[in-house]
């Protein structure tokens, strides 16, 4: 059942969440870069190379995972020169490039560079990462900033433009409308929910650096709310994600208004999950 999300055609409705799947490692270990997935969403690309936050970066939660990864990555140049070409040779289906940064120019420069690259099928603006000290979530937490950034990115590319939202906002509908006004083709709901873990003795953050985000089954009803609110507030297609673990979770998000659904944390337990869900959805 082939579908279209924000002008991007997909052979079936399952994707991965940015930062929750490494196509290179998967290809090396499992012999396939994106088994069961209609394409591949890259880890968020930042302008400069980033080491990411110090350890510890993860903590377990009841029915969830807390992370404070901090957007490690090779940076824009190495991504374009090395990683993206390699991904293009191993990934089955379209590659959606997730773009992050700390200023409007950070985003726009990356979007413009990707616009020239045929290996990139669509662009996802990550304005909702809670794990870096500045930027990202502070844009996605503000309707004006979101619209300004989306509009600037829109001017820099004709490729399908997705905007990934946070549920950690007072009214996600307002942010969604801003992305629509800025010219987005689709919304991605949701990123991790602002959360943290503390060391019980010191009261200090458990993490080595930055904020934390909650993912997994715990946030499934939060994602569902975000999808409903965005569907009601805009005409945009929606990629739904947050705690999806089985075919029924996919059906719930689709019923709520999502055109495609992405798997994140659940892939960590089962790298074959997309295949299993695809089989289930077909049966």
């Amino acid at each position, binding site marked *: 059942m082939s579908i279209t999300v924000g002008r991007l055609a997909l052979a079936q409705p399952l994707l991965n969440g940015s930062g929750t799947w490494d196509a290179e490692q998967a290809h090396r270990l499992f012999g*396939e870069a994106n088994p069961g997935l209609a394409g591949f969403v890259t880890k968020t690309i930042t302008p400069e190379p980033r080491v990411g936050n110090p350890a510890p970066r993860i903590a*377990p939660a009841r029915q969830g*995972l807390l992370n404070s*990864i901090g957007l490690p990555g090779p940076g824009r140049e190495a991504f374009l020169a090395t990683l993206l070409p390699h991904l293009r040779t191993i990934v089955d289906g379209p590659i959606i490039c997730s773009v992050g940064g700390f200023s409007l120019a950070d985003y726009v420069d990356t979007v413009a560079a990707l616009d020239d690259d045929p290996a990139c099928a669509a662009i996802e603006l990550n304005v909702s990462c809670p794990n870096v000290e500045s930027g990202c979530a502070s844009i996605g937490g503000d309707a004006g900033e979101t619209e300004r950034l989306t509009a600037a990115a829109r001017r820099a590319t004709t490729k399908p433009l997705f905007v990934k939202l946070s549920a950690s906002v007072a009214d996600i509908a307002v942010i969604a409308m801003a992305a629509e006004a800025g010219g987005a083709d689709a919304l991605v709901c949701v990123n991790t929910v602002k959360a943290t873990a503390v060391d019980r003795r010191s009261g200090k953050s458990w993490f080595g650096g930055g904020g934390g985000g909650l993912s997994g089954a715990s946030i499934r009803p939060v994602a569902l709310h975000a999808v409903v609110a965005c569907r009601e507030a805009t005409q945009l297609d929606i990629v739904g994600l947050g705690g999806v673990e089985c075919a029924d979770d996919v059906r719930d998000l689709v019923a709520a208004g999502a055109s495609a659904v992405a798997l994140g944390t659940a892939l960590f337990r089962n*790298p074959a999950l997309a*295949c299993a869900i695809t089989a289930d959805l077909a049966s």
Partner: protein
Amino acid sequence: MSGVLEHATRLGPYRARVMGVEPLGGLALVRVELDSRTEVGVPGQFHMLSNPAGRDYLSRPVGLIELDGGVGFVVDQASAAADMAGPEIAVLGPLGRGFDLSETNAETTLLVAAGFGLTVMAGIGRMHRHIRLIAGLRQSDHLPLLECITGVTNDAPRIAPDLVTEPLIEALASGRYTQVLAAGPTGLGTAVARICADHGVASQVALEAPMACGFGACNGCVVPLDGTWLRCCIEGPVVDGARLLA
């Protein structure tokens, strides 16, 4: 459609049957029967384990131990009861880089391990009988864990706050050892690597880090390597000690 599933991954997760849980002091030995597609791997590699009906949402990395007549792993008793008591668990692996044992022999190789790192040494002991092991344990009720580490010749185990680094320094002073294989938390690994470097002795260290996926997807398991933060599950868990000192 089940072809899709089979096709997806060479590694699994595949089911394993829990054959029994035996107390080992404050720890527990969980005996399992692996799916025929799951291999044990080389010493130092690990498997991600989870029980879909268990308490924990995430899988956890453990080292499988070959036992007389089977395979098992050691976790603390609470985890065994809440997550691994079966009847079926999911096992993904072997994952990561194991030890390079091409230069290993019982005469010139010394093993140092603490905590769950000890489980790694069982496999090496099976290959190189009577290889010497300096073992460290966090608390004395973990002592029964050593019963699973057969084949090796144990020094008197050190129980915290006693450190494994003291007997290590003594042993290296003898000049007999040309290589140290170590396993344990990153702090231990770094200390061992430093001491080995000071003595001009090669070291390989199996590190530990909290892991969410075990196969490079989450970026959660970083350890300080080559002067930066690198993924333990992909770059390791076994790394050349020198990389910890960069």
